[in-house]
């Protein structure tokens, strides 16, 4: 299984490469977790994410390897954004390819659950539209 993990400050709208023949993958799943316009009931314009990068990457890799023991997949790619992520943009993209869909769905769902328990990444704070504008004009 191929695992690619990346933390980045840049926009992560791109998705998994188009399926290529020959890899034996019958199921490709892409998940994007997008920042929503409200956080705890308040209207927001962005979230700021913080990561303990080396540990976050190791932990994601460890979780995926562990889950792959039960749900064999061919390819897993995770990109998590850090820093300011405006509403409507993806904070995380996960792409999974497997022979059959059941493995891909199970690995993806399991990974997202474990991510939210164990991977040292935090929503540091929510920014209002004014705060976001101020940051951009600095």
């Amino acid at each position, binding site marked *: 299984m191929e695992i690619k993990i990346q933390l980045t400050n840049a926009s992560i709208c791109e998705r998994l490469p188009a399926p290529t023949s020959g890899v034996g993958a019958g199921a490709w799943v892409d998940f994007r977790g997008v920042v929503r316009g409200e956080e705890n009931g308040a209207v927001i314009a962005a979230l700021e994410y913080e990561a*303990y990068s080396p*540990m976050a990457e190791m932990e994601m890799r460890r979780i995926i390897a562990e889950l792959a023991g039960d749900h064999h997949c061919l390819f897993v790619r995770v990109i*998590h954004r850090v820093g300011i992520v405006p509403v409507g943009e993806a*904070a995380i993209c996960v792409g999974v390819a497997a022979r059959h869909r059941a493995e891909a769905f199970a690995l993806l769902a399991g990974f997202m659950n474990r991510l*939210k328990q164990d*991977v*040292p*990444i935090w929503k*540091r704070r929510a920014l209002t539209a004014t705060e976001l504008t101020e940051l951009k004009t600095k």
Partner: protein
Amino acid sequence: MRVLFFAHLKDITGCAEMNLPGGDLDADGLWQKLIEAHPGMEQVRASVRLAKNSEYVGRDACFTDVDEVALIPPVSGG
């Protein structure tokens, strides 16, 4: 040893990391020193996990001068 603080722990300590001089420590000893330096840490102790060199460790962990220790408050990625 180098001790790293993340997320709201930085608000409590006022810094992203500190150096804890002096020899080996177990988890309890580490917390004692941290609370001495930053009394506000006491209230978050129950919810914070410890990591040593980028891996979670349990209550029985030991830390030496060369270790990088991270205090991991509840995570919220994704």
